[in-house]
């Protein structure tokens, strides 16, 4: 035992105090804050480690279960054989799978636009139910789905998802395009999640606790626009909730699935966030004035007939299989002016509004993000966003970033 471990008498210890120089040094050190740390990096690394640990534990558990599983299979085979022998004379019954229906994942409640919604390759009408494993495709139309009281979500035209999990939480795997959801908050855990799998097989999950969000993918690049609530973005856990980057609204998030921690970019400026689309049965107010103002523009006369967009099951519109013509910066300026002119304004007042709209266009030619600097009135921004983000009407040269200064006086 060292000298330091030989306990001293209580009297000696009671009388012991640090000297003044020592107290001064302690005081100095107490005044020194801990160095600034990159908490995001620490949290990302921690998340990865925990996810790997969970994955490894699950794998071990699966290996451990093999023996039990083998025994169970043997018992089941024996039971089946006995059952078959005892009932071979009776008429065959429906297979078990046909009786045990999978948990419903919701149903199609509205169809917007001119195309159709396919589930498992079959066109469905309103009321069509979704089940786990179903592949849902929006062919030229927007489909709005609902799991009553839990989540309402839409699939944008040209998008496809697979229902990865039908019980709580509902998980959709986004194959292409975009989905937008309004999720009823749950007291604990997650209510809804969107998985995106990269070409290399990596998966990122956007897990929702109660929120309004849109998740879009362009190849392995993912964009999340969060207009309400909180999401967690990270690797899907084997069990429990997603331990990832916690993002609070408003937020515009971009990331690459194969390098989430390295590519994650979060902008919390409200103007960076794509305007939320109403998921009510009624469509959001269409920017009629905007579209009307675009008569000579690429949207074209034949489309102007259909811009009332929207009502669920709009069967009067022609098929929208052709891509819209390319838009130009002038189109953007025209849209902003039209929306600004449509905004309410006091009589006898002249208002001049200046802004610069910066658009990021994905490799599919559709707008991924729109920033207004300085911001416009929310109603005007919504109006502009509805047009710019509408893939039926607005398409640009692919993979460009446009900065369009606009001044409107009225």
């Amino acid at each position: 035992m060292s000298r330091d471990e030989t306990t001293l008498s209580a009297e000696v210890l009671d009388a012991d105090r640090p000297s003044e120089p020592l107290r001064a040094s302690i005081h100095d050190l107490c005044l020194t804050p801990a160095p600034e740390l990159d908490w995001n990096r620490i949290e990302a690394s921690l998340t990865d480690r925990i996810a790997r640990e969970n994955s490894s534990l699950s794998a071990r558990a699966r290996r451990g279960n093999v023996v039990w599983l083998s025994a169970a299979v043997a018992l089941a085979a024996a039971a089946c054989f006995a059952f078959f022998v005892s009932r071979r004379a009776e008429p065959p019954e429906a297979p078990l799978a046909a009786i045990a229906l999978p948990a419903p994942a919701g149903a199609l409640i509205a169809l917007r636009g001119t195309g159709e919604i396919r589930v498992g390759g079959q066109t469905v009408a309103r009321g069509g139910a979704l089940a786990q494993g179903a592949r849902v495709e929006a062919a030229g139309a927007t489909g709005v789905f609902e799991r009553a009281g839990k989540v309402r979500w839409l699939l944008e035209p040209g998008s496809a998802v697979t229902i990865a999990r039908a019980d709580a939480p509902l998980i959709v795997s986004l194959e292409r395009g975009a989905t937008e959801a309004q999720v009823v908050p749950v007291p604990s855990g997650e209510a809804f999640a969107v998985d995106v799998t990269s070409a290399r097989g990596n998966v990122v999950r956007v897990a929702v606790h109660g929120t309004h969000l849109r998740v879009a993918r362009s190849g392995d690049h993912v964009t999340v626009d969060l207009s309400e609530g909180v999401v967690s973005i990270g690797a899907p856990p084997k069990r429990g909730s997603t331990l990832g980057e916690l993002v609070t609204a408003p937020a515009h998030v971009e990331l690459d699935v194969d390098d989430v921690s390295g590519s994650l970019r979060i902008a919390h400026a409200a103007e960076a966030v794509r305007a939320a689309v109403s998921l009510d049965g009624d469509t959001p107010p269409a920017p009629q004035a905007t579209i009307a103002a675009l008569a000579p523009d690429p949207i074209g006369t034949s489309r102007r007939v259909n811009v009332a967009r929207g009502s669920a099951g709009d069967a009067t519109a022609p098929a929208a299989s052709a891509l819209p013509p390319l838009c130009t910066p002038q189109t953007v300026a025209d849209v902003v002016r039209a929306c600004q002119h449509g905004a309410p304004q006091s009589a006898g007042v002249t208002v001049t509004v200046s802004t610069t709209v910066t658009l990021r266009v994905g490799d599919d030619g559709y707008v991924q993000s729109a920033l207004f600097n300085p911001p416009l009135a929310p109603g005007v921004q919504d109006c502009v966003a509805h047009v710019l983000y509408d893939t039926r009407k607005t398409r640009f040269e692919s993979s460009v970033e446009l900065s369009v200064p606009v001044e409107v006086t009225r």
Partner: protein
Amino acid sequence: MSEPDNLVERAGAGDIGAFRALYARHRGDVARLVHRMMGPAPDAEDVLQEVFFQVHKSLKDFRGQSKFTTWLHRVTVNVVLMHRRSAKSRPVLSEELPSDVSADHRSLLPDEEVDRRLRTRAFLRLLDKLGDKKRTVFVLHELEGVSPQEIAEIVGAPVLTVRTRLFYARRELEAMIAQEPALAALNVTFTKDGGHE
């Protein structure tokens, strides 16, 4: 400190939201303790990550026999000591100036603040010379304000042993301060003022 909302129980049961809340609440305290025990180490972020990884792994076994903060202190101290042992072959404290007192910044700070930071750096270097057991007790008591009774729980030693380690830690540091040029002025000052020296 007790944790509201049963955060500890929920986190131990696998509620990741509760774990995140615990992490957000305590990460600053853990970072400060790590900094005081290790000095301006370049791998402090790795140590912090390891602390919370161990917390996540072990939380299910935390039964509440002690305060959560006591348990968290114990995990932190153990991780720091293990890290130091595994890194013993390389110097823990860099001889380079830490970034907060680099030459570029010196001109931006009042002289007194620069002096204080230099003294702090020198003191951290002295702390690093203490043995692990004495340094742990000293940091927890003198810098973190933890009582000897609680330190005894953290390090798993009798209270009297903890107090003895504290006694010797003070003596060793006082002797080193007297020999440290950057801190020698403190001795002079307190001698003139009629202090201990």
